[in-house]
């Protein structure tokens, strides 16, 4: 099997046993890898509680991983989210996926629950479940330092140990995260503190020469792309390059989404960061874009969402506080978007005014679940707001806090957030690409015209990217056309754009079916009412109006038709067997 190792590892933490078995060829054909593998594998257990022995957590690689393809260092972690209760996948970079695949496994599935803290060490084909009590209570950095560079690691912090519902899994040196949806808490429930892996088996490539040509085509497109290699692009500034343009377009979520413009955001823009920190670039294995930036002592420089949410969303313009908040979230293993948004929600509901430093104290309290406040905020903004009768002030979809693009300034994003199978996520369809960054072409950001189909196709495309596994950023510049060639060269298959999109559609449909099984319907595919009632921060030239509810519902209806769902958002004809 070219592009795959042909073997998988399943570990049961209850019995401390493991088995190695062959990769199902039908699974590869129908679901490719990564996210596709994960949602298919979890499908027969999706109604189990995220905090239960039965629910699996899956670390899945894809056919391009550990090959000379471009941005091939990514993989996906899949489980059921304790924050949203939906099926949940998280794409993660770094080198963990590469190491896992080179250790000989297409995916690693973990079930059960240990009676005491454990760690998993995979050394080539050798698998060990070891005592992890030494690591319990340690922050993520302390655990990395234990393994140094000898292994690639996936670790939870104190937040995951305390089952904070938006705890993350932190990879390698703290730059890479399975950030969203609380997958760190799933690991925490299983009392699995860390996984360390290494391996050096090469991956077989079907046609190395065609792969070289296909990669060359991609590189040429990357160099032609302003968003990637341009003077302001990701390569140079990382995602911080978005601060200024999102600000200028007035879709910058401010004060828990009460406003859409924060006059001080230039204080933490890419330019400001470059002035304050001497940053160096790094990135995931096999990536020429290198969008990650680090300051002194390998300190990760915050990404766009973190900057904006610990900044504008919390009315804070201190870059120092943002950077420290980011550092704490990394150490404790917390998703920065949900953390910042939950704090902003708390600020609005309680009416409390506190110094920017107060943010740092709250992060600490949430991770440790200190006191009543720390406990309830650790449940996420929706459960917290609900507990005080203010559900509508949680700026989330399906309980997942919204990222840093206000939907009133990006209607594709409005629809994308609402129908996303994992809740308020910008990455399922990433309409910012055409509505703001004008790629591959610009679309009217204040119109729902044509958006249902655009969102549907983009969701399918992204499902493929997450299954290949590749990085979404590269798709600012290239399309599935180029990646079909790469995939074919690696595997010897004969895919084209349309055959890939079919798989993407299959994955997205299956996810919706799994959510339907857990009771999700159109009532969950919706936005907080604020966006339909309140105006954003308009200027002389740009009006940020409330979204017309009927237009939104019509677009959502069109999306359902295209997705093969009924008016309640339930898939009409589901694939009988997941695989």
């Amino acid at each position, binding site marked *: 099997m070219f592009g795959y190792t042909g073997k998988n590892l399943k570990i049961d933490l209850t019995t401390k046993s493991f088995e190695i078995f062959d990769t199902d060829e039908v699974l590869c054909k129908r679901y490719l890898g990564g996210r596709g593998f994960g949602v298919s594998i979890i499908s027969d257990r999706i109604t189990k509680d995220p905090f239960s022995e039965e629910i699996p957590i899956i670390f899945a690689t894809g056919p391009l991983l550990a090959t000379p393809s471009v941005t091939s260092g990514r993989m996906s972690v899949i489980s059921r989210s304790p924050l949203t209760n939906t099926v949940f996948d998280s794409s993660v970079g770094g080198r963990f996926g590469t190491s896992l695949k080179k250790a000989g496994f297409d995916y690693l599935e973990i079930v059960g629950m240990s009676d005491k803290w454990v760690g998993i060490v995979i050394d080539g084909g050798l698998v060990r479940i070891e005592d992890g009590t030494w690591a319990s209570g340690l922050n993520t950095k302390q655990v990395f330092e234990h393994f140094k560079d000898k292994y690639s690691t996936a670790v939870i912090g104190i937040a995951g140990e305390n089952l904070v519902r938006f705890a993350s899994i932190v990879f390698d040196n703290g730059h890479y995260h399975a950030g969203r949806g609380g997958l760190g808490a799933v690991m925490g429930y299983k009392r699995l503190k860390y996984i360390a892996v290494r391996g050096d088996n090469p991956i077989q490539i079907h046609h190395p020469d065609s792969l070289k040509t296909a990669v060359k*085509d991609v590189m*040429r*497109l990357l*160099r*032609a*792309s*302003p*968003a990637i*290699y*341009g*003077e*302001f*692009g990701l390569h140079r*500034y990382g995602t*911080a*390059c*978005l*601060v*200024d*343009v999102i*600000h*200028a377009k007035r879709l910058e979520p401010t004060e828990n989404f009460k406003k859409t413009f924060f006059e001080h955001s*230039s204080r933490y*823009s*890419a*330019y400001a960061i470059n002035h304050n920190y001497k940053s160096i670039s790094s990135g995931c294995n096999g990536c020429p874009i290198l969008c990650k930036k680090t300051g002194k002592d390998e300190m990760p420089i915050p990404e766009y969402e973190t900057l904006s949410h610990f900044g504008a969303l919390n009315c804070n313009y201190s870059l120092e506080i943002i950077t420290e908040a980011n550092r704490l979230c990394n150490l404790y293993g917390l998703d920065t978007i949900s953390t910042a948004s939950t704090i902003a929600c708390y600020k609005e509901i309680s009416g409390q005014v506190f110094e920017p430093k107060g943010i740092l104290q709250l992060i600490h309290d949430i991770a440790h679940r200190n006191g009543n406040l720390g406990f309830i905020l650790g449940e996420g903004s929706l459960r917290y707001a609900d507990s005080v009768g203010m559900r509508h002030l949680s700026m989330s979809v399906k309980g997942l806090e919204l990222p840093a693009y206000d939907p009133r300034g990006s209607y594709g994003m409005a629809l994308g957030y609402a129908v996303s199978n994992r809740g308020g996520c910008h990455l399922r369809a990433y309409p910012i690409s*055409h509505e*703001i*960054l*004008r*790629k*591959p*072409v*610009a*679309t009217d950001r204040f119109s729902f*015209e*044509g*958006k*249902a*189909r*655009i969102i*549907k*196709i983009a969701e*399918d495309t992204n499902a493929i990217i997450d299954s290949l596994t590749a990085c979404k950023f590269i798709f600012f510049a290239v*399309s599935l*056309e180029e990646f*079909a060639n790469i995939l074919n060269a690696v595997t010897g298959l004969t895919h*084209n*754009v*349309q*055959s890939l*999109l*079919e798989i993407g*559609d299959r994955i997205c449909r299956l996810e919706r079916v799994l959510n339907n099984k857990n009771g999700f319907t159109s009532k969950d595919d919706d936005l907080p009412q604020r966006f339909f009632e309140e105006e954003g921060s308009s200027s002389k030239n740009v009006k940020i109006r409330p979204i017309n509810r009927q237009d939104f519902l019509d677009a959502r*209806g*069109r*999306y359902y*038709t*295209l997705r093969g769902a009924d008016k309640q958002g339930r898939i009409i004809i589901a694939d009988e067997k997941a695989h």
Partner: protein
Amino acid sequence: MKRLIEKYLKKLEQQGLVNPKETVFIASDDRVYSNTRLSKSLVTIFDEMNINSLIIAKPVEPYKKIIESLVVSKDKVIIPQDCETRTFFHDFPVIEKVNKQSIIQALSKRKSAVSRDGRVVAYGMVSPEQAYINISSTFFSLFVKYFVDRINLKEAIPKAIYNLIKEIQPLNLKEGSIFEAGKALVSLRLVDSYFGNISFINDGLIHISQTGSSLDELEDTIVTVPLDMSSTNGIIASSEFSTHRSVYLNTDFRYIIHGHPPFTVIQSMLCDERDCVRGDMCYQSCKKERYFAGIPIVSGEIGTGTNALVNTVPNAMKQSNAVIVYGHGIFVASKEGFQQCLDEIIRIENTALMDILRTKRS
């Protein structure tokens, strides 16, 4: 959707590319819209292809004759030689018949295809505009390829085609604004509406067309970027922003136009050098000093990178107000205004056109 179909069909007509009556333009959201009655198989094409829009274009002259003559040979694929189309399209498959199956097959692999009967098919994934762009770029690329091939093979240009090519008439801008200049470039066919870029500098601020903006619709798509780079909102500026900035930093010019005038592009690709080892990589790094009508021709890829035109064009502009980029287009700069840029680009294009037609017709 209907509105967008009409808009882009009209643009294709105004650019002198297609006959709208014989062209099919289909777009879809949850249902299918079109400019004409569709056969059943075309209606259902969107069930099988996850795309947003599809155009089956019937060219008008001179494209009609040119494309027809390009598909006479039995080749199954046409490889564009100009740099820009090559970067984005890689190649154009040739289909024997325009039917549902052949369209699906060809467009599952490429953004556009040419049929043996001379029609061109292209799709858009995101919007009808994308299908329109793909069609017009394909036309441009085929046009350039036709002339370059003929001349390289020392074949004469048939009179029927020769007679269809006209010199460009000068045009006076009323106010000389960036909007007006953009519109003039498109209407004179010095650039496809979607490609090219334009800028001026004032008080340390560069005002430049956004990436993927139509030069004839610049009203809401100029972005202002500080020369000192203190804001990154230039991420939505034209992909050649760095080249414009570098020209402003290294010269006294204050206005820049970048267009793709076809005959200038064709001239840039005609090289007599026999012993050159570059093969087909001329667009990347040509070591030879070349000129057309006194204007330097440089190599350079789009965007950044060591072989990028950001490293060749600004340098050449220290000595010349215009620079031609191999297989791509031209940059023209001025200290006074866009009118001077426009006059110069027209002069060079007309020289290029006359040179080809005068010496190479049958």
